[in-house]
Structures are given as structure tokens and as C-alpha cells.
């Protein structure tokens, strides 16, 4: 096979943001996978609901709204530092600044994780009490796993930003981290509605 050059690509940049970057796709596909898993859990929740006459089952109190609503607020607000970090990253702002905003986001994450502990308690049931307990604990636990993974990942990226060496592609990582965080927040909105508000409606 003979080769006929028709273009030279050496001047192309070596990183990109958004859907131009493979890591964005890896992250997005991960979100599809985990989103599908949440959807299956939600479907299971409603399926199980119709095996009970009362929901929550009789003698189980309604899940507490106090701390869980506070946590919802915490997560909603947490989107802001991530959004800002992503914006600054795309502008190739100094790494320390990007790292600082990410670290700020980490604080929200830690707060959410701590509050999650109380949310489990607010369910007023155990995972081994009955199917209601099993599904609600599982939903909270799976989301907690995402919270933990997201918080720790953000910590690491922030650490890289502070300590270096930082390449331009690490800015892409920071921006993609924000997208993952939005998923964590948005999925929690849906799951909060199902687990905490749901029993009051259905």
C-alpha cells in the first residue's frame, strides 16, 4: 500500500474539553451505567411497594424529613464550587485556584457523607427488617458509594492541582469531575423524592 499524505496534524492541541475528550465519554458512559442501576433500584422500590398494604409497612414510621432535607440542600449547593472549578479549569486558570474550588467542593461532600449517616437512621428501619428496609437502605448505600467515590476522587484531583506536576489534560479531568458530581447531585434529587417523599404520597 502506498501512502499519500494529505494533511499534517502536528499543530493540533494535545487536550480538549467536554465531549471532545475521551475521558468525558468514559465518565458519561459510567453515568449511563450507574444511572441505569439507579433506575433499576427505583423500579424495584415501586415493585416492592405493592407487596405491602401500607407503605412504610405498618409499625414503621415515615422516614424523617429534617436532616435529609438539609442534606438535599447541602448537595444542591455543592454543585456551585464544582461548577466554578470546571469553569476556571476550562480557562486554564492557575492550578492552585482550581484546586481550591475543588477542595471547597470536597467539604460539601464530606458534610453530605456525615449527614448520610443520619439519613440511614431517619429511615427508622433496618436493611434486614423487611423488603422496605432492604430497598431503602440499598438505595441510600449505593448513592453513598457514589458520594464517597466522588469526594475522594475530587480530593485527589485537588491534590494534584496543589502538588503538581500539572498538565493541561488535568484541567479536563477537573472539568469532568464536575460532571460526575452533577450526576451525584441530580441522582440524589430523584432518589430523595422516592425514598423520603414517596411514602408520603403513595
Amino acid at each position, binding site marked *: 500500500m502506498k501512502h499519500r499524505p*494529505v*494533511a*499534517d496534524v502536528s499543530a493540533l492541541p494535545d487536550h480538549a474539553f467536554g465531549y471532545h475528550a*475521551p475521558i468525558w465519554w468514559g465518565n458519561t458512559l459510567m453515568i449511563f451505567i450507574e444511572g441505569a*442501576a439507579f433506575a433499576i433500584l427505583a423500579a424495584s422500590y415501586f415493585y*416492592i411497594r405493592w407487596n405491602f398494604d401500607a407503605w412504610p409497612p405498618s409499625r414503621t414510621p415515615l422516614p424523617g424529613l429534617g436532616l435529609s432535607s438539609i442534606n438535599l440542600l447541602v448537595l444542591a449547593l455543592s454543585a456551585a464550587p464544582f461548577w466554578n472549578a470546571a469553569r476556571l479549569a476550562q480557562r486554564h486558570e*492557575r492550578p492552585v485556584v482550581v484546586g481550591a474550588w475543588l477542595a471547597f467542593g470536597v467539604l460539601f461532600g464530606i458534610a453530605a457523607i456525615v449527614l448520610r449517616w443520619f439519613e440511614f437512621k431517619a429511615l427508622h428501619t433496618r436493611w434486614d427488617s423487611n423488603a422496605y428496609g432492604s430497598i431503602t437502605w440499598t438505595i441510600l448505600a449505593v448513592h453513598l458509594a457514589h458520594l464517597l467515590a466522588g469526594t475522594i476522587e475530587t480530593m485527589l484531583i485537588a491534590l494534584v492541582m496543589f502538588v503538581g506536576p500539572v498538565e493541561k489534560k488535568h484541567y479536563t479531568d477537573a472539568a469532568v469531575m464536575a460532571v460526575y458530581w452533577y450526576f451525584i447531585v441530580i441522582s440524589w434529587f430523584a432518589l430523595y423524592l422516592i425514598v423520603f417523599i414517596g411514602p408520603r404520597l403513595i
Partner: protein
Amino acid sequence: MAHANAIPAFDDPDDRPGMLTANEEDETWATLTRTWDEGSGLWAWLRSTNHKSISRRYIVTAIVFFMLGGIEAGMMRVQLSRPENSYIGPDLYNQIFTMHGSTMMFLFAVPVMEAVGLYFVPLMIGTRNVAFPRLNALGYWMYLFGGVLLYVSFFYNTGPDAGWFAYVPLAGPAYSPGKRLDIWAQMITFTEIAALIGAVEIVTTVFKQRAPGMSLNRIPLFVWAMLVSSFMIIFALPAIVVSSSMLAMDRLIDTHFFNPAEGGDALLWQHLFWFFGHPEVYIIFIPALGMISSIIETFTRRRIFGYPAMVLSLISTAFLGFGLWVHHMFATPLPQLGQSFFTAASAAIAIPTGVQIFCWIATIWSGRPRFTTSFLFVIGFFLLFTIGGLSGVMIASIPFDLQAHDTFFVVAHLHYVLLGGAVFPLFAAFYYWFPKLTGRMLSERAGRWNFWLFFIGMNVTFFPMHLLGLHGMPRRIYTYLPEMGWGNLNMISTIGAVIIIASVCVFLGNVWISLRRGVPAGDNPWDASTLEWATSSPPPSFNHLFIPVVEGRDPLWDARDGELAVVTGLRTDRHEGLLTSVMDAEPEHRYEFKGPTILPLILAVFGGGCIVLAIFTPWGVTLGAIAAFIILTCWFWPTISPDYDTPRTR
């Protein structure tokens, strides 16, 4: 961010640098070889992140599992060949049919299809590696360890024994004591991770790394098939991730997902499992459809008829495939009206499949077929899969299914569609692509023996089962009484199995001898049209010397003057590739593929160890998370590459 302005496009012929000299090409070849060399020996092999090495391992491992699954099938056939046979008792028999199904579905069919995709998709789209090379390696190790887990437990007489579908409550803590089903559930964990990894690789690679000019309407149908199948994996696998985890939790930490006494439901398992399980068979089948397209095009020397219809058929098959799952549950007390919807959907999916078959026939009609072994297997596919597809429409009917469900009629159906619809295309693909993979041709003469033995054996084994099922023989029974009258047909079926085994032996012999003494293949022995044939056989580690530029669906037929348009300018001293836009494949930026590293193996070992621990204690999950965290930190920690732009620090 299109960078059309950044690339000197050489539109003006006077600007072009002209053809590359032989010296320049040789130098590029030498530098690339050096850069992409992974070394030799065991250490290098363990650290490999080259998609071709990893795919070869996948394929070899999958073939080993295929043979193990075949041995299990052989044992079942021996046991069933006569009424009241005492070759195998019930406990071992139940483990064997569970192992057979689990091996073929989880350890052979999906991995081998993904592996063939992971090998050929990068070559066909003109890139150098998959998007996430280390992740790809991790996928293989997880797959291997999952299979090893299953088989070690089987050899210790702790193999799962509740069927590959593990219905509860039988698979639950009350009726399956011990660790058998926990092992099954964690084997699923390993193989689901591997499958999901493969899917993410393929989608990302196909979207971002295609050769310039290879817009989405110019990618080979095999690449479309792998893309569609990968999306199916992404949306279907989570269902079994969730359900197998629920099963593991019911067994290990006393949750009640499937315990009717506490509000759980045995049917919940069935919904979740089949929501995964039905798409699973299309995940296996759709790549085979892609292989058929490649092979028919080459061996009829005719561009596939109706490319847009073929693509839409693949996509609609995928969507419809998610809407059929209840047809596995027709005998359960679900509402009749709801069930009827699934009859209609199960019938409807015959339409896109029909479109594909008719377009292929149209292609053959207007082409000029060459009856290579590969093409024979394709013809075998048509003849066998159609039987399976039609028996499938029969059991889409609820009344008919209520007689045929859980009998050997379904065993016949599923083997016609899986062997006819997936394994025959796979063998066709082996004969087609073996020259590219190894640089040698397989023997056509042995290939014919392979084909005919398999074709005859398959029919002798499975056709009688249609009748056995309607004559009342249920599935998953280790023996039957002489007065049932099933003995003769079962004996015939067992003879067929022997013929199939002979066929596989011929195949293995063919591979063994051809590896050593096969005719050297050259770059493009079949005069095919797609890019994998533009490079040497086997391909060099970097795939193509230069990234090609394409203007149509059949680059090598379009480039009839023996000249392939290429881009230059990628670094050869780094693992550098070109990324292009999703829709139109316009060059966008350069990308560095990660090189060899031992970290994927380490993560698989420690993470896998914790998954095995989770068979015994839930703390395995916690420990696994910690291990993963530590190893992934090392994985992602930046290693600076000099010459890349670094912003001001601090």
C-alpha cells in the same frame, strides 16, 4: 472545537509534500516499532496494554471456556442418552447444567464477541489503540479471575447448581445453603465489570478515534454492530449487577428482596434477571450480524446492499431487545394483557432481523460469491439461525409457549439461535480474520470438514429436541423413565454431540497446524475493502504506519490505484494517536495512549481478592473499596511527559 485551520490541508497540489519516500516510511516504521514495543517475556506480557495482545488473550481464554462448556454439554448428553442412566447423579448434573449455561453465556459468548471487537474495531477505524488501554487490561484480568473463581469452585464440588439464571427462592439462603450461589453471584461481579469495561472502550474509541473522513455513515457495519452491542451492554448489565447484588445481600446480610414472608418477591428476581437476560442474547447476536456483513461483502465482492437500512435494523433490534423480557415469564401469574404486549414485541423484532437477511440475500444476488470456508459458515448461519428465529416466533405466542416453555423445545430454539446465529458467524469470522491475526491462512480443506461436521452435528443434536419438548420432556432433568419414550431421540441427540466434538477437534487441529505451517497470508489475502486489511498480517503493534483518511465506506476498494490517503505529523516517539469529531471525523486533537503497566493486574488481583472475600463476609466490599482507592491513586497519579504544555504551577 474544529481545528480545520490548524491543519495544512494540502488542497493545492503544489503544496503537497508528495509521496513519502521509502526511506521516510522505513524510518517511521522503525521508530514506531521502538516506541510501541512492550518488551518480551512474562513480565512484559503481564504489563501489556496493547489492545491486540489483550484481545488475543480474551479470544484464547474464551475458546478454552467454550471447550469446557462443551465438555459439560457432552457429559449431559451422555447422561441423557439413555433412560435411568447412572453416569451422573442429580447433584453433579445440576452443577453441570448450571456451569454449562454460565460458562457459555458469561465466559464465552459475550467475552469472545467483545474481544473480536476490541481487536478489529481500532484497526477498522484506523487508530492505534483503544481509548483507555489500562482499563482494557483490567477488563481481561477481571474476566479471567471470574472464570477461574467459577471453575475452582466447581472442581471443589462447590459449583453453583441453581441454573445459569439462578431463580429465587431456590437460589436464596433457605434453599441453597453453603457458598455455591454466593460464588455464582460474585462470578457475575467479575464478568459484568469486564463486559462493561469492554463496552465503554468500544463506544469511546468509535466515537473519538476514527480516521479523518470516516463519518458515522461510513463506518463498517461490523463497527456499527459493536457500537450498538456496547450500548446494549451499558444499559442491560446494570440489571444483573443490581439483582446479583440483591441475591448476595439476601444470602449474606439477611436482606429480604426475594423473601415473600417479608414483602420480597420471587418475581422481582425474574424481572430484573430477564431485563438483563434478554438483551444479553442480542448483545451476543448483534456483533455476529456485523461479522456476517463484513464477510458477505468480501466474499461476494459487493458493497452491502442497503447500508442505511442495515444500520437502522441494528439499532431497532437493540431497542426492541429491551422490550421482550417478559416472554421468559409467560407461565407466571402476570396479567394477561401485559403479557400480550410482549408477544407483539417479540414478533416485531423479527422485522429488523428480516431486513438484514433480505439485504444480505440482495447483496449475494448481485455479487459474485466465493465459497471459502468462511462463506460456508455464513451460509450455515442463514440455514440454522432462520430455524431458530422461526421457532422463536412460535414461542412468542403465549398459548404455544405454555406448552413449550421449560422443555427441550426451548433448548432446541436457543441452540439454533445461539449456535446458528452466533457461533457459526464466529467460526466464519475465525476463518476470515485468522490470516490477519496470525499472518497465516487456515487450511480450507480442514475447514470444509470443520464446517460440514459442525453443520450436520448441530442438526442431529438439536433438531430432535423440538420433538422431545412437545412430547413432554422438561428441561434440567437428570434422568427420565424408560416408559416416557424419549430414549431414542435422546440417543440420536447424543450422537450429534459427538459429531460436534469431532468438528471442534478438526478446528483446533487446523489452528494448531496452520499456526506452524499455514500459507503466509500477506496484507490482504481476500482483497477485502476495510482498513484492517491495509496493514500487515499480523498488524504491527501500532496498527497502521500512518493514520488513513477515508472518503467512502470501502476504503481499500476506493483506493484502487494502490494509494491510501494518510495524515502525517503525529509523534512517533510517544504513543500518540489522533482524535476526531464524533459525527464527521474531522481531526480535533492529539492524544497519548497509556503504555504498559502492571497496575491493572494489581488492581484485578487485590480488587478481585476482595470480591472473593465478599463471598464470605460483607467486609470484602469495604476492603475492596479501600484497595481500589489505593491502587487507582497510583494509576491516575500524573507522570509528567516533557514537552507537553505545563501551565504555571503555584
